């Protein structure tokens, strides 16, 4: 039977939210194509955080029909060559029509590697996917040229059809624990482990680090903040919203905040539900990183700032005056028990 695969990611024994988003996409495609949806995930039983059966079943409840957990030494953390070789072997045996992965640091590395191994076409960073009626081709739509145009791409003659999907561009399905599905654990072929690469570990306790790609809300500041200390004002807003803090290149280059916060062409492309920026002018390179944000709010004293033109809600005013007023309201709302 026609199979559609999603590549799931885990972090320390927990399936990442982005993989549930991907399953929602996959479910939709599988229903359109009349295919079964297979979630592939890697795990290492001898690691500190092996994937429990409950985690694998979670993939079923989030939309998969089948789960294949490829297991082997060192496989729980991303390692491009080894993952790619294992997937290529499995794909040759099972011949999926579609493989999708999240456009994360791992997905964006793994997929082009695997596409070469499989002689398959790959489209990066898709924001829409659907199945073309009659041909069954995967229609892969992605922003191009800094998000200024959209392109729909097909892979008519080769299989599998592969795509990475921009994180946060879909919502996960609510878990349905009544769903049934096959869960299989598969031992990886150890000869496929690439001896030329050794994962030495993950530094995760870095001061001034932020995971802005996976945040639902990002609050960002630019040169208008005037100095490093003033990021405090934005952090207060971020805390009140449960948001991550981003920054323009100007703010990063001035050393006010570290590079992992940078949004834009030479930083990160993000797609949060809400992007609030203060003291950022909205240069074309900055906008390239936020074009697919669902809602954009700008706070800038210059009525002509280009960011205001892109914003859904623009406030022309002094950020040092406006931001604290917003924080005050958010906090008041919280103490009132605003989440009715």
């Amino acid at each position, binding site marked *: 039977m026609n199979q559609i695969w999603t590549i799931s990611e885990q*972090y320390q024994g927990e399936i990442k939210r982005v993989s549930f988003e991907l399953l929602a996409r996959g479910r939709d495609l599988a229903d359109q194509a009349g295919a079964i949806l297979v979630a592939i995930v890697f795990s290492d039983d001898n690691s500190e955080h092996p994937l429990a059966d409950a985690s694998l079943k979670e993939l079923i409840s989030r939309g998969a029909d089948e789960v294949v957990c490829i297991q082997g030494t060192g496989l729980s953390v*991303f390692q*491009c060559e080894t993952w*790619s070789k294992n997937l290529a072997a499995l794909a040759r045996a099972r011949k999926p029509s579609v493989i999708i992965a999240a456009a994360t*640091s*791992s997905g*964006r*590395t793994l*997929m*082009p*590697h695997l*596409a*070469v191994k499989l002689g398959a*076409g*790959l489209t*990066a960073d898709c924001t829409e996917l659907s199945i073309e009626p009659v041909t069954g081709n995967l*229609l*892969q739509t992605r922003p191009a*040229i*800094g998000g*200024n*145009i*959209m*392109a*729909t791409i097909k*892979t*008519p*003659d*080769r299989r599998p059809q592969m795509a990475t999907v921009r994180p946060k561009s879909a919502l996960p399905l609510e878990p349905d624990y009544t769903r049934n599905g096959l869960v299989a654990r598969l031992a990886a072929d150890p000869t496929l482990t690439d001896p030329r*690469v*050794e*994962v*030495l570990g*993950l*530094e*995760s*306790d870095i001061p001034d*680090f932020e995971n802005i790609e996976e945040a*639902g*809300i990002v609050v960002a500041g630019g040169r208008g903040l005037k100095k490093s200390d003033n990021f405090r004002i934005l952090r207060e807003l971020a805390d009140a919203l449960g948001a991550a803090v981003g920054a323009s290149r100007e703010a990063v280059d001035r050393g006010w905040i570290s*590079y*992992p916060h940078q949004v834009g*062409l*030479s930083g990160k492309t993000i797609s949060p539900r*809400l992007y609030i920026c203060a003291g950022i002018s909205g240069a*074309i390179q900055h906008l*390239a990183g936020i074009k697919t944000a669902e809602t*954009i709010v700008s706070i800038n004293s210059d*009525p002509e700032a280009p960011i*205001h033109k892109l*914003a*859904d*809600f623009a*406030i*022309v*005013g002094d950020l040092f005056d*406006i931001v604290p*007023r*917003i924080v005050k309201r958010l906090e008041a*709302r919280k103490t009132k028990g605003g989440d009715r």
Partner: protein
Amino acid sequence: MNILAAIKQVPDTDKVRMDPDSGTMIRAGVDTIVNPLDLYALEAALKLREEHGGTITVLTLGPPSAERALREALSMGCDAGVLVTDKAFAGSDTWATSYALSLAVKKLGGFDLILAGERATDGDTGQVGPGLAAWLDVPVATYVGSIESSGETEIVVRRLVEEGYQRLRLKLPCLATVVKEIGTPRLPTLRGKKFARSSMIRALNAKDLDAEEGFLGLRGSPTKVSKIFYPKVAREGVMLRAGDEAEAEKAADGLMAFLETRGLLAKGA
């Protein structure tokens, strides 16, 4: 250490203007530049050469005019430029591009390390680097923010991932794509510019590379663009002026109401 850096010539996004009425890109008079993100790869290469000696070869696939990009790299201090150019390559997607580049790398031979940018600002896929590594069958590290150590036979890199930095040890030869953190690209020097002007650029065509015909250009590319359209400008764009106290209060209230209606203040937004 013999290093190969893959760079791409792209339109200068700084100069790209959008026509506000039609939402289209105004291409007229747009200059081409070295993909700004590839300058970080060149900087990384130059730093490694300072440490280890060796040579830096810069490789690009593009039209004959892409020679300019190579000369710019030479003016920064790189040693040699190679241009892969042939009408047969026109319309290549990332799969076909990385295939053609891999043939050139094999033909030139003898590299310890291949460096590439994180992505090109025009294609914006980031796929050519890992694809090239796959064709060459060398290990790859993407999003490299720093090279912790480099030796005769291996390098240790820190790559920026969602949760922090993943540290990897890779046997040489390998391929790394780098991000801005690797260092500020140096400017061309006078001596470099002179060298760049007088340097011979080696050109390679499809025949030189013994390329498989079915793998080239538009025809050899698995992906086909079937439609281009302009994103719906759904943003209605409320703009409030907050010039004085009363207006600021109104703007803050307005924003709260706006976020509330969009469901952005609910838990887990």
